[in-house]
């Protein structure tokens, strides 16, 4: 499928994808750096380019609730937010996931207060990791577009029926411009299909949503989401495969790898820093260093088996986290470690905290990480978390 390539802002790329997927209801509340998506969609609807119900919300809480209600009424629904806004949506997203409402949400990653900042990191979406919503992390504007085109089908699949968050770093993806290939609306609409809910609020078959339950079924409903997320893995694989067949693009399914063959150090990361790591890995490989990269694309469902397989026989795995569970460590690193626990191969796993609050993660930092991780190979046992760029003078 031939598309039109143009220099587009990441937010515009997302808005183009969402428009072509024809959501029935859109409700979004402004927050930096998500607003450009909201503004584009508002303009599309006002100009008649998109026939959706566009509802101005009075808060992120209401925005999430509005798409919740719309989805329950059988509509394809979309929202977006960032940072504090995602935290404000947190309670709604838990309920949305457990009620199995397949809303698509763009999460424009931004750090959490305090101190207040609009810099990107992953603390916001990590705070929603246990909601039951699926999370796809993208590394580029093109992937932001591709992932949104894929998102509705994955979320709305009868075996899945979970909210899906496409996570993209604020500014680096949302406010930056790059060549993005946008495919014809009709082709995207055909790919995205339409939403056929298995149940909905309907007077001809009155159902009760949000029933009160006690110990007899609550645990069972949490478990049902575990099953649905496992099933989502196959769905994500098949949708991304089909996307490659139709449109030619492939950004990975559950994960993507780069130069992992015979790698002595494998870096594991998510989001926009993956691109910079690719560049650093290429430079290191050209210097003869055996370094590889695993991009975790779906943080939920978590690709534990795929990560183990992709790490292969690499003796050292360095995990880069843009989020922190205080007094525990990097969240991705914790999950990677738990994936390996009890398995036959046990690489040395070195956790790195890098890029919190937008602290720069450039090729120099990546190479430093590779050096530290290589040295760690000699040390047995659990590895200390390494904080990159931390100004320790404050703590001496």
């Amino acid at each position, binding site marked *: 499928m031939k598309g039109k390539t143009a220099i587009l802002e990441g937010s515009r790329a997302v808005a183009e994808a969402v428009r072509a997927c024809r959501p029935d209801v859109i409700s979004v509340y402004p927050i930096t750096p998500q607003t450009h998506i909201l503004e584009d969609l508002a303009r599309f609807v006002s100009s008649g380019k998109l026939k959706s119900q566009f509802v101005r919300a009075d808060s992120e809480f209401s925005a999430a609730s509005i798409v919740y209600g719309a989805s329950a009424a059988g509509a394809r629904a979309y929202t977006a937010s960032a940072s504090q806004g995602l935290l404000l949506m947190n309670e709604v997203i838990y309920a949305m996931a*457990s*009620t*199995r*409402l397949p809303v698509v949400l763009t999460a424009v990653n931004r750090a959490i207060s305090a101190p207040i900042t609009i810099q990107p990191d992953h603390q916001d979406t990590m705070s929603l990791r246990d909601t039951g919503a699926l999370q796809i992390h993208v590394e580029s504007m093109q992937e932001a577009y591709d992932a949104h085109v894929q998102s509705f089908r994955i979320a709305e699949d009868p075996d899945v*029926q979970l909210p899906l968050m496409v996570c993209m770093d604020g500014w680096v993806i949302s406010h930056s411009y790059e060549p993005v290939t946008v495919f014809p609306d009709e082709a995207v609409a055909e790919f995205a299909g339409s939403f056929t809910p*298995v*149940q909905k609020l309907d007077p001809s078959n*009155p*159902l*009760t*949503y*949000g*029933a009160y*339950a006690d110990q007899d*079924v609550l645990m*069972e*409903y949490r478990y*049902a989401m575990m099953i649905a997320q496992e099933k989502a893995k196959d769905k994500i694989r098949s949708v991304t495969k089909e996307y490659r067949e139709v449109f030619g693009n492939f950004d990975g399914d559950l994960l993507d790898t780069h130069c992992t063959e015979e790698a002595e150090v494998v870096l594991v990361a998510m989001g926009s820093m993956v691109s910079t790591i690719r560049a650093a890995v290429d430079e290191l490989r050209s210097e003869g260093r055996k370094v590889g990269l695993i991009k975790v694309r779906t943080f939920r469902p978590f690709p534990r088996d795929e990560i183990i397989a992709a790490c292969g026989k690499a003796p050292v795995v360095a995990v880069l986290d843009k989020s922190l569970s205080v007094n525990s460590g990097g969240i991705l690193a914790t999950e990677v470690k738990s994936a390996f626990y009890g398995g036959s191969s046990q690489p040395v796993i070195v956790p790195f905290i890098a890029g919190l609050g937008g602290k720069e993660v450039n090729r120099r930092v990546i190479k430093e990480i590779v050096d530290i991780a290589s040295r760690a190979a000699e040390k047995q046992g659990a590895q200390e978390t390494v904080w990159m760029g931390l100004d320790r003078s404050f703590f001496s």
Partner: protein
Amino acid sequence: MDLPLGGVCKAGESRKLETGKWRSFRPVVDKAKCIKCGRCAEFCPDSCMEIKEDGAEVNLYYCKGCLICMRECPVDAITKEVEEK
């Protein structure tokens, strides 16, 4: 037994719950006095009062014995009796 998707349940399944077991007092209708005005049925929180040909009838399967019917009856056709368990 299926676990309904997303906790979404069917309508009206409360009808199987016999809330009449909650009762301490039961309303008793003196059908000779009843004028079939329907006030008791209007105000009954549990939809237990049915106005039949010969007067109001209490559906004791659901009646929780609140006695609003007794209080609101304009002709004092309803009295209470202690529920025998």
